[in-house]
């Protein structure tokens, strides 16, 4: 059951990467940062799977995943924004966040081998904020990456709390340990279904983008 959820998540991720790169390279329509984000997600997922089979601590990669998610989604939304103020805000917020997080890692390198709560909170918050700003912009404009943004916000809410609880689950007995991760795998699948749906809505049709 667990394996099925996890591998099904990978499966959808691979499909999304394929579809979006098809749209990007063949039709030059999909956003480059979005494609990068999906490709990096795939690489990190496989890296974590690999490290897991080598019985190594794969949380380094997970922390890296959060950073990468914030930066790439931030740049993705930045490319969608029209206002200069919003574009600047994204850059400044990303710069500050990266500065703080990296200096914390330098100060205490052991942080990257467990669930780095501060990092998870900051990165998720910023991602949600970028997505909300995009929602705000979409209020009176045409819908662009609408379903994807719904997916991002939904996954950030659920996933972040689960990751914040991560350190706690290590101490639990095996029976309950994996419950939260099963839930996370499920959320991950839902999230990538939204991304898939976004592709169907925006890119699968021939002709002009909605």
């Amino acid at each position, binding site marked *: 059951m667990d394996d099925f959820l996890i591998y099904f998540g990978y499966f959808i991720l691979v499909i999304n990467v394929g579809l979006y790169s098809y749209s990007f390279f063949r039709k030059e329509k999909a956003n480059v940062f979005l494609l990068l984000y999906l490709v990096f997600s795939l690489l990190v997922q496989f890296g974590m799977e690999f490290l897991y089979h080598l019985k190594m601590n794969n949380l380094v990669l997970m922390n890296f995943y959060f950073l990468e998610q914030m930066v790439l989604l931030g740049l993705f939304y930045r490319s969608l924004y029209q206002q200069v103020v919003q574009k600047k805000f994204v850059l400044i917020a990303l710069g500050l966040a990266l500065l703080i997080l990296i200096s914390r890692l330098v100060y205490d390198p052991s942080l990257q081998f467990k669930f780095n709560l501060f990092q998870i909170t900051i990165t998720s918050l910023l991602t*949600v*904020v970028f997505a*909300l700003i995009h*929602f705000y912009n979409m*209020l*009176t404009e045409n819908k662009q990456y609408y379903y994807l943004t719904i997916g991002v916000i939904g996954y950030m809410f659920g996933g972040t709390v689960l990751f*914040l609880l991560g350190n*706690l689950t290590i101490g639990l007995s095996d029976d309950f340990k994996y419950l939260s991760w099963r839930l996370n795998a499920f959320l991950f699948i839902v999230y990538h279904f939204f991304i898939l749906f976004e592709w169907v809505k925006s890119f699968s049709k021939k002709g002009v983008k909605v």
Partner: protein
Amino acid sequence: MRENLGYEKEIVTIILYTSCFLMVVAVFLVVFFYFSRKKIIQKELEKRDLEIYLNKEQLHAVIITQEDERKRIAQDLHDDISSKLNIVSLNAHLLSAPNLTEAETKEITENIINLTAKALENSRKIAHNLLPPVFEKFGLNAGIEELCEEFESSKSVNVNYTNELDLDDKDIDRHLHVFRILQELMNNSLRHGKATQIWIAFKNVNGINTCNYEDNGVGFDSKKADNQKGLGMKNIDSRISFLNGTINFTAEIGSGFAVVFTF
């Protein structure tokens, strides 16, 4: 004991971070809703302003059309009737002059009779142009038939008119708008389109009275802004809005002009 303390610390940190995360997100959501409301209200206001502006524009167009029409009538009256009546009055004065021979009297009287006949004919034409009597007496169908005949006889254009509708004479006020729209369209086809063929068809499409109008003129580029809203087109638009109908233009350079409107 020590391990237990560490564990508790861990739990407290997690709770703190979780609640912080949720609180900040909640604050952002509230801010988001606040600004969204503001934005929507502003958009609504802009829409209303635009509506007011369009209304004003329409009123403007109505006034200008009215003035143009007055000018046209004044000119017609002046050129076709006043001038003739002037000469009639001159001739009448001549009649009252003494020592006129028989032949002179006859010539002057003939002049007067001719001129009054022409003035009469002209005044009939002017009145006819303003509101065709056939239309008033026999309804839209007859009015359009007469309009087509007029166009065919005087302006070297072939008009095909078909009617599948059963038009109710009680709606004559609404039909006048339809009549005027067709008049305007036909005039445009001739004046701007140089058309030689015009097709007019009234049909009932799903219970809605529909008129298909088409010509084979030079057409125009419907994407160009100047072509979209001339005074005549504005006039047609406001008539359509009176009729609660819809109108659709399709025009391309070189392939004529087609209109479908409902009433």
